[in-house]
């Protein structure tokens, strides 16, 4: 740690260190503990998913993986930190989907384009939920009500670019005249709590976070934002009400592990193998089922394809509702 920082500072030496990867380096890798940076705070979804997979990764690599939360700026701080470290495979970024929107929201020049996806661990499925005494039994009733009473219904949200915001953008695109008041909270947990307390009327939340509250009847589910039924959820997929949603789905938050793009190939291969194995380990899959997320376990090109599709859908939705600071077209994000 100390040694390589010193190298970095003495300009020329740093360049040398970056270019001359000793041939033996890849075989020895990992020779010391790896450092994992979590983009989000302790107790959040990214944190939980990361801490669930980390012990399995340690097992596969035979080396410690020390995890640190570096939250802030919807993940910008953590990403910047890992990007400022050497591309030697010892610094791993654990993040969620947010960096795919840094460009359109004007938050950072960095994005996952500057990193290599070792693995996409899991993805979540959003569900549309309402307070338990709301007068709607399904998505159609909600939509009719909103159309008849524009701007009076309160939707729980998590801020611009958050999951409820994007689902709202989808609804607004598919249902002309869908006007609600979005009340943003500090995350989906606090927003769901407000929904449970009846301070907002409905919202979209990831299935894993809403599941237990639905099961206990403290909030009710209107629809799954998916093309198929979710196991354990007694609500139809949204595509039954709004077939237009098909073009966005599957959509939802995802979690993954990344290294800097410049990391030498053999090291990436080693890491990728360990992470994919860990993500497909039965213990992690069991956690996913319990946590209400869909295990993915894909890496490399396949992961890249998934992420790019996600970005195209989301960036353009944001642009269409006027929430994008930068035009996605100018950033080279194709419209699907």
């Amino acid at each position, binding site marked *: *740690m*100390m040694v390589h920082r010193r190298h970095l500072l003495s300009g020329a030496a740093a360049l040398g260190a970056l270019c001359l990867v000793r041939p033996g380096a890849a075989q020895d890798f990992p020779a010391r503990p790896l450092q994992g940076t979590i983009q989000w705070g302790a107790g959040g979804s990214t944190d939980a998913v990361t801490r669930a997979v980390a012990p399995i990764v340690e097992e596969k690599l035979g080396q410690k993986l*020390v995890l640190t939360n570096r939250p802030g700026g919807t993940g910008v701080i953590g990403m910047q930190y890992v990007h400022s470290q050497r591309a030697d495979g010892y610094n791993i970024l654990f993040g969620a989907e947010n960096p795919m929107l840094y460009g359109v929201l004007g938050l950072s020049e960095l994005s996952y384009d500057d990193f290599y996806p070792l693995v996409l661990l899991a993805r979540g499925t959003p569900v549309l939920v309402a307070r338990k005494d709301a007068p709607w039994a399904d998505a159609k009733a909600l939509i009719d009500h909103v159309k008849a009473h524009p701007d009076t219904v309160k939707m729980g949200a998590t801020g611009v670019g958050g999951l409820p915001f994007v689902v709202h953008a989808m609804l607004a695109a598919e249902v002309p005249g869908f006007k609600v008041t979005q009340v943003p909270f500090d995350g989906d947990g606090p927003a769901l709590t407000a929904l449970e307390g009846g301070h907002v009327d409905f919202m979209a939340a990831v299935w894993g976070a809403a599941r237990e509250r639905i099961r206990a009847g403290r909030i009710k589910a209107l629809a799954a934002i998916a093309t198929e039924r979710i196991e354990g959820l007694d609500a139809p997929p949204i595509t039954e009400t709004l077939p237009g949603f098909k073009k966005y789905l599957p959509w939802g938050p995802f979690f993954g592990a990344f290294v800097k793009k410049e990391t030498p190939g053999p090291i990436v291969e080693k890491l990728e193998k360990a992470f994919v194995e860990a993500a497909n380990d039965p213990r992690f899959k069991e956690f996913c089922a319990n946590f209400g997320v869909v295990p993915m376990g894909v890496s490399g090109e396949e992961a890249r394809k998934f992420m790019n599709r996600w970005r195209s859908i989301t960036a353009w939705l944001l642009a269409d509702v006027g929430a994008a600071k930068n035009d996605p077209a100018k950033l080279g994000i194709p419209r699907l």
Partner: protein
Amino acid sequence: MTPSRPRRPGELGLTLLLIGSAFLLGREAYRISGFAGPSSPGFGPLAVVAVVLGGLAIELLRILRRRPPEREPLAVRVRRIGHEILPLPVLVAMALLVAYVTALEPLGFVSSSILFLTAAMLFLLRGPLSRRLLLAVPVATGTVAAIRLLFQELFQVLLP
């Protein structure tokens, strides 16, 4: 608080400096969303800057009502400031502190901390140099060793 109390050296300067910074913050706050509705992101910062500026303006008036400092030779004035505002130990400590924090990254935590502790203790302790050294060096090394053990080994904080 009585208006007859003479101004303290630097009092006026600090208030003016704070007012200046508040204006800068105000401009930055205005840039967020201009004068938009109460739920806009810029509303809070602008409102709070207004409170700061209002408070500082009253404070400025209070200071101006006070007796301005008497004219005195520069040497006396410097000594007075040194006594009331920035005594030598504080000044040296601040310099050491800034040097310490700047050295953290290039030198690493262990060496920079040992250096800082030794230097600060040597400066603050009284008595012959050999005795001070004999006390400062072991205490500095011991402290840093204990901190490193606790933070890095137990709590997995990777110190710089």
